[in-house]
């Protein structure tokens, strides 16, 4: 009898989480799916008509915004990785007694709300700000140019806002790195560069993958940065979905767009893990079996 009871324990432990997911993920998903193939309006009510043209219309009307979202999120993710890896490396190996303080500094922005942090960038990048004057002085920017309300500003905002999501998993995997392996590499006459690319980088791949996913996925759906830092040609798909839901109350199009975005992200992530991920994540097993 106790064995039966023991077998039930995991289900008992899982049930609050499952119930939570069912209520706040499965049920909303069901309604989104329902709306995405419905037709009607708020005034006349909605009815299920299996209108799959909601999808084709949504995709063909908003291809630009879809493309832009993936472009911005991709650029921000790459920038986050380029900025975040050296930072995480420095915190893990070079910071010494400053390590905790530096980690705190990475997390510190979270004490202010996301919205305020984004709006602060409006001040940093405004037309007459020191940053912009400096860029003009070194002729990166033409004298009548601007930073705010451009794609660059949106990507900068995304990069800034999602950087901690990149740094923390990178730090976690760097911190676990067995330093004796680096010594061994050195003993075997590998240069510092070779050691980095052939030992450190592959061993921290799980951190890179986690960081990339944690940065890229929320960045694709973001609309706050485009709202405040973008101009007239910087709307991302999140802005469109927001406006479809709340401004013109076209729930069908909004739901179809949300679903399409979700499916594209899912496919992209699966491809990414398949081609970039498995080898790094499962490398040990494959080697073991080989």
């Amino acid at each position, binding site marked *: 009898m106790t064995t039966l009871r023991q077998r039930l324990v995991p*289900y008992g432990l899982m049930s609050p989480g499952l119930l939570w997911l069912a209520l706040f993920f499965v049920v909303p998903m069901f309604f989104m799916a329902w709306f995405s193939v419905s037709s009607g309006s708020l005034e006349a009510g909605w009815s299920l008509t299996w209108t799959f043209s909601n999808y084709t219309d949504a995709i063909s009307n908003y291809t630009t915004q879809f493309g832009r979202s993936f472009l911005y999120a991709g650029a921000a993710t790459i920038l986050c990785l380029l900025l975040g890896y050296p930072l995480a490396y420095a915190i893990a190996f070079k910071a010494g007694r400053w390590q905790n303080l530096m980690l705190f500094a990475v997390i510190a922005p979270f004490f202010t709300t996301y919205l305020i942090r984004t709006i602060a960038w*409006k001040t940093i990048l405004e037309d007459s700000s020191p940053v912009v004057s400096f860029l003009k002085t070194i002729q990166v920017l033409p004298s009548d140019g601007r930073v705010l*309300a451009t794609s660059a500003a949106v990507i900068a905002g995304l990069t800034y806002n999602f950087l901690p999501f990149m740094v923390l998993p990178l730090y976690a995997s760097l911190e676990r790195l067995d330093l004796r392996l680096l010594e061994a590499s050195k003993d075997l006459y590998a240069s510092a560069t070779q050691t980095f690319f052939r030992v450190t980088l592959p061993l921290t791949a799980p951190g890179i993958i986690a960081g990339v996913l944690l940065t890229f996925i929320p960045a694709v759906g973001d609309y706050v940065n485009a709202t405040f830092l973008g101009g*007239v040609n910087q709307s991302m798909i999140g802005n469109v979905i927001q406006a479809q839901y709340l401004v013109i*109350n076209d729930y069908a199009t909004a739901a179809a767009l949300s679903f399409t975005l979700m499916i594209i992200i899912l496919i992209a992530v699966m491809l990414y893990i398949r081609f970039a991920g498995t080898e790094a994540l499962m490398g040990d097993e494959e080697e073991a079996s080989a």
Partner: protein
Amino acid sequence: MTDSTWKRPVTRLAIAAAGLAAALTVVACGSTGGTDNTDVPTAPGGKASGTLNISNWPLYIDDQTISDFEKKTGIKVNYTEDVNSNTDFFGKVQPLLSNGDSGGRSILTVTDWMSKKMYDLGYLQKLNPDDLKTVFNHLIPSLQDPAFDPGRTYSIPWQSGMTGLVVRTDLAPDIKSINDLFDPKYKGKVTMLDELRDSAALVMKADGVEPSEASTEEWLAAVDKVKGAKESGQIRRFTGNDYVQDLAKGDVVAAIGWSGDAVQAQADNPNIEYVQPEQGCILWSDNMSIPVGAPNSPAAYEFMNYVYEPENQAQIVEYVNYISPVTGVKEILTKKDPELANNELIFPSEKFLSKCSNQVSPPGDDAQQKEVENAWLSVVEG
């Protein structure tokens, strides 16, 4: 013992699953039904007491009126500034209102077209004029019979305002017309509001089309003109009321904006000024209404009457700087604050408003309106 031990979690799961299925069915059915206003109730009056929940826009009341009202009537007021935009607020409360629940609100405040939309959906109650004696004694004549609600059966104006040009007079002194916003000289230095009924309406007025008489094609033409200016880089951004900061910094030299914002911003920066467009402005009001399912409507009537007492209204106007819908306020303020009383933006003369139009929605049925709204959305969110 064994039986009951292993059954219990299963039973619970089964109950949960059944509950979930039931909820799905209920909500799925609920969301299919449209609503209409044929059986809209009239909010009951009576002796006012208890608690009153009010939803209004930010910075739309002074900080004395509510406590004065509480002291005078003994009614406890929860005044919430949770209306930031008509559409966002609608999106938030619609699921409640469609089930006849006001979310505890007894008064909510939205703009003309949204008042009408909510009423047509059956979300607002009718008001009893016998319970609003003070309101109807002091409501200014020009607002007594608006086209969307003749005789004021479900909406009582809170404040009115103008949509026009807000300009940095030191940086762009020659902007006098909406058409000047399209001047290449100001490329990338102008913004428009993201509201179709403000921006597109002003653009068509500048081309000599009266919004209330415009056809769907004329609305689409105005949207197209804005689209061209957007694509050429003329328009920097479409904004909510955050255009004021852009103007203050000088990132933007001219914007389509609201009169009350301009009066408030001018106090901080004398170079920011409201300019009445040569071809006129768009006039609108935000209205108090009692939503369906509202608790304590007697207290709501009491509050509406209270803010229509000229003395009480003067106190609000002094702070918010929009156009008051109440008679006799100018006389009071002439004694208290002559500069305010002579401000054309707060007490506009008929001449100042002569070319202005009332804010309207695009014409036609649901599908035609949606066509214009979609076209506008694809410009704003392009």
